[in-house]
């Protein structure tokens, strides 16, 4: 079995995984980091979004063996001890979730969005967050939360 070295949330793991194990399954079922969610397993929902070498990616659409040596951040790795990440705080303040299933993916995706720095307007934030679906329809509040962290921005009209 191939040995895969993954740095997840600043901790190094050496895993023997079979080649066909997705990064998502390795994170959830081998490392028991179950914050990252499996929605569709087909690249269509964004629930499995993690940050890999500073880029947001879908962990269901890649294999653990393909990420040997990569540095990955999951939802478990973004708070500093008890101090929540600003996006986590903003999501709570803005009621940006209902069932919460899409939330880890939304927040990891939003971190990627802010790191990329390509979205200037609310319209652009919406477009660049479209890879994260929310079945509860919390989207407007999700965008509010991201806008607040982005620029302390207030709610604009759609």
């Amino acid at each position, binding site marked *: 079995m*191939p040995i895969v070295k993954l740095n997840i949330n600043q901790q190094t793991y050496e895993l023997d995984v*079979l*080649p*066909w194990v*997705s990064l998502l399954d390795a994170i959830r079922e081998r490392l028991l980091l179950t914050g990252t969610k499996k929605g569709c*397993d*087909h*690249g269509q929902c*964004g629930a499995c*979004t993690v940050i890999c070498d500073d*880029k*947001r*990616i*879908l962990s*269901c*659409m*890649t*294999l653990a*063996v*393909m990420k040997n040596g990569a540095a990955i951040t999951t939802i478990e790795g973004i708070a500093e001890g008890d101090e929540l990440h600003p996006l986590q705080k903003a999501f709570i303040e803005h009621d940006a979730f209902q069932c919460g299933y899409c939330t880890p993916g939304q927040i990891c*995706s939003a971190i*990627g*969005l802010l790191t*990329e720095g*390509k979205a200037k307007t609310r*319209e*652009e934030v*919406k*477009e*660049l*967050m*479209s*890879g*994260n*679906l929310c079945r509860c329809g919390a989207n407007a509040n999700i965008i509010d939360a991201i806008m607040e962290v982005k620029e302390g921005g207030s709610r604009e009209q759609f």
Partner: protein
Amino acid sequence: MNNFDYQQAASIADGIQLVSTNNKAAFVAGGTNLIDLWKYRLMEPELLVDLNQVKEHHSIEEKEDGSVRLGAFVSNADTAYHPIIEKRYPLLSKAILAGASAQIRNMASNGGNLLQRTRCYYFYDPNVPCNKRTPGSGCSAIDGYNRIHAILGASDNCIAVFPSDMCVALAALDAVVNTSGTDGERSIPFSEFHRLPGDMPEQDNNLRHGEIITSIDLPEKGFSGNYSYLKLRDRHSYAFALVSVATGLELSGDIITDARIALGGLAHKPWRINEAELFLKGKQANAESFAGAAEILLQGAKGFKYNSFKIELAKRAIIRNGLMALHPEQQLPGARPSA
């Protein structure tokens, strides 16, 4: 889903060797199409050969003759946001950014984008006939629910469309696909890379087994002054095109001196008709001229039960996008209608 072995290609030559000698081997780059197809059992590789560790073809470079070379292993996102591409080929940037999602574009490679397979739903359903999946079994779409299917260049064997957005812009820009295989290197003009279904719908393109796309060349002319990508679909983002149009214009005053129009979502490959572009030369850049070009582009279009609406929609999109190309600064996120 089947089990498979995994190996990393150390070089292009190594990759060619590993895959060309094993007809059950496949390359993987971003994985966003291959892993999906494997989960649907549409691909059952015995060996996956990862191309990401190959040292070359990870950059975008301007060449002396004025052209630009896109490495096959550069991600779609890095390509769309690359300063050279944003400046000289904004049509390509816009088309890439209208496709998939930010996460997928971070993963997807330029080479893999050209090789993504159709989104025909019958192709994904093993319980029904599909000539593309199982040659000779029949086509479930021709008499089925064919709303997303082809109106141009289809055959009695398959009416699937090729779903890429990036490739619509590459077709308009006259890109060239560079490959390397057991028979050496090839440079394939974009119009000859993808195929029409004919009687071999299982073959989407002219790449051979074990042959690697190494780069894509963009000729100097980038239509960066007047361009537009318009994508019409069932929701504003994160959906495939029903109809898309890539337009590039060169203008002298309001007279068109050169034009390119490529269509997506309508055929088994990006659709371009030279006569439509010749027709526009010397004409005023207005709705009437674009309507004339639209008629030529849609000549021979044939609708099926649920997709005849695409014929009129495509014509209107060509006109609209021609006008949008006059105001590229007004382009909206997601290549929605503007102007």
